[in-house]
């Protein structure tokens, strides 16, 4: 398959692994920010092939995983209101809220919830069911936000007034600044998320590289993409440099996508946001602007977001911060599995715990 097979070429992979080994002159710790990276590294088998001097730490880049229990509780509240119909991304469906209840449970009890592949499908649902209030729980980072903004603009243009979004949208840089400012984490390099970077641009990581002395490399998601990014990182670390490099030039530019950013700015404004495991991070979220309040489910339906209660014993918070790895969690692989997840990192296929469980050695 074009654009895929050439990036999974076994000979090229071997060659790049040799180059990476040669470039790695001292041990270093890399945070792979994005859940898609975590999954790709496991699924391709790359994790076990890397030089042992490279330690990979998963970061807070799985959108489902960082959705707070309180926001799941709010989604559940909306699902149970009469006349509402939720259109949700599939991997949100099994994420437990504060008391373990999920949208899957709510649907079994009679709530109207459909899994959709795009927010535009939610808008279509609203068009087809004018008597219902169709709500799209907005989750995700810069990658998904432009699509949501475009959907709200389309709803306004088409005068569809029974479509709403509950925004828990987040931006990637504030938590990274907060997390990586902690020297205890000991991160040397950042494998920057390819999809988010296509919107925010490689330039966005400049302050992180400068202020935290981090080798930041934007990487794609195929094995050879990841290896190329790690080579650029290893060379910097060996030479004591901390710069921003782009190893994913077929998708990411230095400036990113200003048009998508401007569309997001039209609809959303920065707000403090609660992250699962990380708490409230100033200016890390996006709220719908007053001019578009008609599409804001939280204000239109007067939803109060309750206080989050994390499941006892769950280490998702520490795992999202990169402080610990899944096998150290007492619930991992025992009470918490992909079929009955307790914490969010086990739910999404891109979650760190799910990746370790699915592709690693999970018997303990």
């Amino acid at each position, binding site marked *: 398959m074009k654009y895929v097979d050439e990036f999974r070429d076994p000979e090229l992979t071997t060659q790049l692994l040799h180059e990476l080994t040669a470039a790695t002159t001292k041990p270093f710790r890399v945070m792979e920010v994005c859940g898609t990276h975590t999954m790709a590294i496991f699924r391709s*088998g*790359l994790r076990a092939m890397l030089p042992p001097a490279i330690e990979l730490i998963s970061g807070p880049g799985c959108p489902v995983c960082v959705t707070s229990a309180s926001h799941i509780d709010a989604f559940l509240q909306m699902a149970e209101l009469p006349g509402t119909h939720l259109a949700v991304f599939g991997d949100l469906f099994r994420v437990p809220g504060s008391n373990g209840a999920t949208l899957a449970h709510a649907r079994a009890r009679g709530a109207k919830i459909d899994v959709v592949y795009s927010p535009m499908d939610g808008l279509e649902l609203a068009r087809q069911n004018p008597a219902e209030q169709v709500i799209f729980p907005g989750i995700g980072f810069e990658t998904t936000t432009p699509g949501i903004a475009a959907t709200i603009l389309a709803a306004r243009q088409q005068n569809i007034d029974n479509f709403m979004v509950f925004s828990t949208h987040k931006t990637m840089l504030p938590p990274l600044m907060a997390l990586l400012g902690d020297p205890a984490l000991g991160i040397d390099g950042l494998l920057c998320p390819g999809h988010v970077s296509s919107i925010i641009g490689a330039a966005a990581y400049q302050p992180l590289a400068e202020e935290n002395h981090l080798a930041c490399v934007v990487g794609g998601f195929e094995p050879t993409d990841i290896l190329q990014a790690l080579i650029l990182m290893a060379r910097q670390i060996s030479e004591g440099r901390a710069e921003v490099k782009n190893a994913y030039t077929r998708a990411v530019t230095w400036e990113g996508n200003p048009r998508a950013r401007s569309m997001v700015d039209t609809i959303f404004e920065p707000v403090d946001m609660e992250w699962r495991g990380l708490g409230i991070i100033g200016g890390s979220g996006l709220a719908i602007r007053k001019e578009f309040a008609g599409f804001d489910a939280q204000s239109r339906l007067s939803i109060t977001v309750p206080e989050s209660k994390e499941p006892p014993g769950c280490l998702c918070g520490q795992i999202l911060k990169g402080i610990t790895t899944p096998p150290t969690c007492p619930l991992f692989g025992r009470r918490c599995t992909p079929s009955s997840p307790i914490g969010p990192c086990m739910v999404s296929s891109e979650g760190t715990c799910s990746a370790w469980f699915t592709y690693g050695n999970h018997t303990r």
Partner: protein
Amino acid sequence: MTQNISPHRAETILLDHGSGGLASQELISSLFLKHLGNKVLSALEDSAVMDNQPGRLAFTTDSYVVDPIFFPGGDIGTLAVHGTINDLAMRGARPLCLSLGLILEEGLPLVDLERIIISIRDASQNSGVPIVTGDTKVVPRGKADKIFINTSGIGLVADGVEISATRAQAGDKIILSGSMGDHGITIMTRRAGIALAGDLRSDSMALHALVQRLLAGLPPGSVHTLRDPTRGGVATTLCEIAGSSGLMIEIEESRIPVRTEVRAACEILGLDPLYLANEGKCLALVAPEVAEQALALMQACPEGAEAAIIGTVTSGGRSSSIHGASDTRPSLTGDPGRVTLKTTIGGTRVITPLHGAPLPRIC
């Protein structure tokens, strides 16, 4: 004067059609017997009586509730015939006959029902396995989703044929009879209303002829295990075989046939074709010395034209981590019951059974 209006002339299924009265009889004669009639079924007795034949009996049942009921490559009717035939075939049985139980939702368009019955007729005739007994119930609107089908099947297992997951042996070669994931991805994309370029089609087909040719063409006892990787896909089925036999299985990603369209759809949706359902494929575990012969036999059948050897059964026993003791990375141990995949780039990862339904990722 409702008697003047034949319920069958109505455009949809009514509760009357399941009453057991006149409307039921009319549906049976003008639709079911018209298309499916044979000597045994058309006698309309309370049960089918079949002649005794030598061999052991294989007996299986399966229910079909697929949504959408029509999809490229088949419909709920073809699945109901092929699925049950394949369950018989996977024990080495020659399928003899099927039962057909229908649960219809009030309001099901008759034209849809007839289309499904014609599919069942074609699948049954092409497979040479008749429907010999049947039943129909109608439930009020909303109590079922359009149509649910149950089929049971009886087959005969010839003397000397012993096929079971527990018979897998170290050294066995694993053959997959064709490309993987076609049915699962077709249903998922249809259900989601996703229009993708390319020709995604269900692989719904009967495999008993292929199995009979395999058994006839190979030395007795050399086919150890046959399984059709339906829900849960090739990954889950191999995990079940490894679990039942207490052996290890190693497969190679680059050898597993997956159609380009299926791979592309999986890449877009974040799905792994190893976990997608198949409805016309089987995994055969055969003694290593007959593997090439078995492959050639399968490839000579239209159902197995794209068959490939995808892996090997091993006794395991390599119980140490492939990393150093202090390494925090996941280890790939050689525990009994474990399935591992050699990835395209030369890495290795463990394959676990499917947990929950496959869900597409958000970005």
